[in-house]
């Protein structure tokens, strides 16, 4: 049986079964892809790079190029300096990116490779061509999770590149956190609709949601250009969307260049989108156009139309912490009843944040950091829910327990919609309402007794 879980919660001291997270480097690789003309570089064994590329490709259905230091037995004894230096020479001479973004792995971290020194040495020895940029982030796989890696690379981007010239750009920095390219595109559309000058960083739209053009481009037109990143130090303010993937970089930019920031959640759902729109409005001192008001109104309208089917429906939400935090708030707005709120991420901050949103209204809710999907399954078996909101890894539970799964977050390995339709903003929320109501009503239509099967809902 594929279904291993029983309705008792097993005591486990030393083991993850069916993890709700993965390791740091993939997050660093994803963030780096949001820089224009950037080659992510994995400083470690060849397998890490291959796994991350395959995993990202399965989610985005796009080619993902990244290079590796191809560690050997020798490198693991004597350090990876020679590998990284040779790699830099090869990358610039053949693939010719503007930026190489190096991230470490468990291997190079344990060996203790000092990446800044290696980069400095490579530059002094002329191995990095004039005008080209090399940045890095430490992303040990045995600390934190994939979101930590994303956050660390965002901090690295700010740390290496942002500058303060003193001449204001009059722009707002938007740090999107770990979102899909379709979401980043929507964040930009909303900012443009508001008439706000902005820099979105990182920005994977037009990198990992490419149209069919007949050409394979290693560096597509998207991604935040280095010049724009440099100028982030001269912005009016930063709006950081996600405690676990965006706030640290905003803090870093504040420390480095004195750009203040507003720390928000990912703009998933009504309130979170309101907060995003309102932050941009206040900072840029603009009026919200009627077009955005209308979008918001349409979202409210559709929730009214279909919301009766959401009322107190118990739901399990799992995935990366920023996604789960924002989705929990939206679930409450829809009238759903959050029951299990799980993240594989480490640290109390996640639980505290979710409890703040639940605000004592759902005393039975079980909130869990460092959770895994085996435990979630055990709990659902013991006390079921009617809906699961999470990534593809929820499909085993959904099938075993006959509970509909609405896919959202990362990774989605078996559907295509996330590549096209955003989950952020009012439009994203409308899309989620459609998906959730379709799932609940399809399930009802499939399983209810004939006399309860109705044409009109």
């Amino acid at each position, binding site marked *: 049986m594929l279904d291993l879980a029983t309705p008792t919660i097993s005591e486990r001291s030393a083991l*993850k079964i069916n993890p709700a997270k993965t390791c740091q480097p993939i997050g660093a690789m994803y963030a780096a892809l949001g820089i224009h003309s950037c080659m992510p570089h994995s400083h470690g064994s060849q397998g890490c790079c291959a796994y991350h590329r395959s995993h990202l490709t399965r989610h985005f259905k796009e080619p993902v190029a990244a290079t590796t230091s191809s560690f050997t037995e020798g490198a*693991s004894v004597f350090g990876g300096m020679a590998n990284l230096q040779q790699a830099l020479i090869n990358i610039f001479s053949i693939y010719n990116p503007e930026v190489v973004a190096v991230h470490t792995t468990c291997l190079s971290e344990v060996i203790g490779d000092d990446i800044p020194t290696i980069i400095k040495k490579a530059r002094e020895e002329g191995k990095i061509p004039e005008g080209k940029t090399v940045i890095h982030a430490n992303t040990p796989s045995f600390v934190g999770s994939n979101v930590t890696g994303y956050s660390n690379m965002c901090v690295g981007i700010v740390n290496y590149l942002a500058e303060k010239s003193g001449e204001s750009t009059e722009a707002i920095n938007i740090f999107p956190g770990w979102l899909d390219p379709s979401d980043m595109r929507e964040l930009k559309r909303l900012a443009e609709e508001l008439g706000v000058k902005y820099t979105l960083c990182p920005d994977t739209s037009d990198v990992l949601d490419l149209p069919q053009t*007949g050409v394979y481009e290693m560096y597509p037109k998207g991604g935040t250009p280095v010049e724009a990143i440099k100028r982030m130090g001269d912005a009016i303010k930063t709006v950081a969307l996600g405690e676990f993937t965006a706030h640290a970089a905003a803090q870093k930019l504040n420390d480095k260049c004195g750009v203040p920031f507003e720390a928000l959640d990912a703009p998933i759902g009504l309130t979170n989108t309101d907060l995003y729109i309102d932050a941009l409005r206040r900072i840029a001192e603009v009026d919200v156009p009627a077009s955005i008001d209308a979008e918001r109104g349409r979202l409210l309208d559709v929730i009214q139309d279909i919301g009766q089917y959401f009322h107190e429906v118990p739901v399990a939400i799992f995935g990366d912490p920023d996604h789960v935090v924002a989705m929990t708030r939206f679930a409450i707005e829809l009238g759903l009843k959050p029951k299990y709120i799980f993240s594989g991420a480490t640290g109390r901050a996640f639980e505290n944040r979710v409890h703040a949103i639940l605000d004592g209204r759902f005393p039975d809710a079980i909130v869990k950091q460092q959770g895994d999907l085996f435990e979630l399954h055990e709990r659902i078996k013991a006390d079921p829910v009617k809906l699961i909101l999470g990534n593809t890894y929820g499909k085993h539970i959904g099938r075993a327990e006959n509970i509909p799964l609405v896919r959202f977050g990362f990774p989605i390995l078996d559907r295509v919609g996330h590549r096209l339709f955003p989950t952020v903003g009012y439009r994203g929320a409308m899309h989620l309402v459609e998906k959730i109501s379709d799932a609940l009503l399809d399930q009802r239509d499939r399983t209810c007794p004939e006399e309860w099967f109705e044409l009109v809902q």
Partner: protein
Amino acid sequence: MPHDEIEILEERRNQVFRKGEGAASGEIACGKRSAAGSVSQRACVFCGSRVVLYPIADALHVVHGPIGCAAYTWDIRGAHSSGPQLHRNSFSTDLQEKDVIFGGEKKLAAALRELIAACTPKAAFVYSTCITGLIGDDVDAVCKTISKETGIPVIPVESPGFSGTKKDGYRAACEAIYKLIGTGDISGISPHSINLLGEFNIAGETWIMKDYFRRIGIQVVSCISGDGRVDEIRRCHGAKLNLVQCSGSMTHLAKKLTDDYGIPFQRISFFGIEDTAAAIYGAAGVFGDPEIESRARELVKEELLKIQPELRRYRKILKGRKAAIYVGGAFKAFSLVRALRSLGMRTVLVGSQTGNPQDYEQLKELCDPGTVIVDDSNPLELAKFCLEKDVDLFIGGVKERPIAYKLGIGFCDHNHERKEALAGFEGMINFAKEVHASVMSPVWNYVPRRANRRQERMAA
């Protein structure tokens, strides 16, 4: 970057060969480690071990390392099991910073105790990763202790990622499997018996092969590792012949079985009509039993008759189309070249991640003049050659698919993510269907590459 400007990485110059150009005896360089800084399509030692052992369905597979190694290999491969599905779960010791400092042995021991009690597996494989190799955990000692405690084989897999290439991972997996072999009772095994090695039951392919052998009166003692069972592996030394499908991964095991148990082996492929027939005849011929041989001929005839009409239809449509192949092992490439030929298609680009010099020599002989042959290639190179050769179809794995689609080229997965069985005679029809579906998809009428061509033709 325009494709005509793409150069081949200087270090890789000898890993690319064009048939009919340069010295005829020029050898392709392979078996090299990838150049640091290359966008290689290759993976690591752990990956090699994991793919080979993964399909053993009633064993526990515990990854001792940080979470990633287990997360990325969780249920990603359609290696079907007709019974237990234990292998499709992901078990990890999820090593944290404190484990890196103080060692992870205790954690591993605790994890194994908990899991063996909960899942009652027939055996456990414990994969070491980069980090366990480095922090000096004595995985062997932990395995020995737990094995003694629980009474099941707990087998360490020597697979730190950095300790070689994917091929070394295959070898480590063979060594791990070998520890099980010879421990089972071989009484009652037919004198006409075989093992299938290097066959992973992707999309149910093992079942097709087993059915053929059942029909001609040959017993399959164990398939390693497709739809694999620990008890079958334990007694596989009782078989009289080993058939090695994925030679890159399992030749090592086959040789050991020859050396220690005197079991001969044949390198076979169940992909394509010619190769499938050859594999069946080859195995049938070993036992010197005219009845088996006659049943084999009957089976091949019967199966061919079944598929010929449909195959002819596809051949008519696909004739003259051009294909590119980039796969893990080179032996698979031979079969693909031949199978494409039987569909009337030409292979104009072929390469592998892990081929050896003999493999590439054989490929050179097999291919038409002008065919580009590459070892350990990368996306830019592959894209460049695909466009240069104007291919209609790309056959590869997960990382190649989106590249093909970006270029506007049909694609067929011949790797872990294939969803249709491609083995045997019915597999040939599935393959033809899949190639046909991809190459003839209406979408190509609208993609720029083809649309432009149509306009050019019309203008001319």
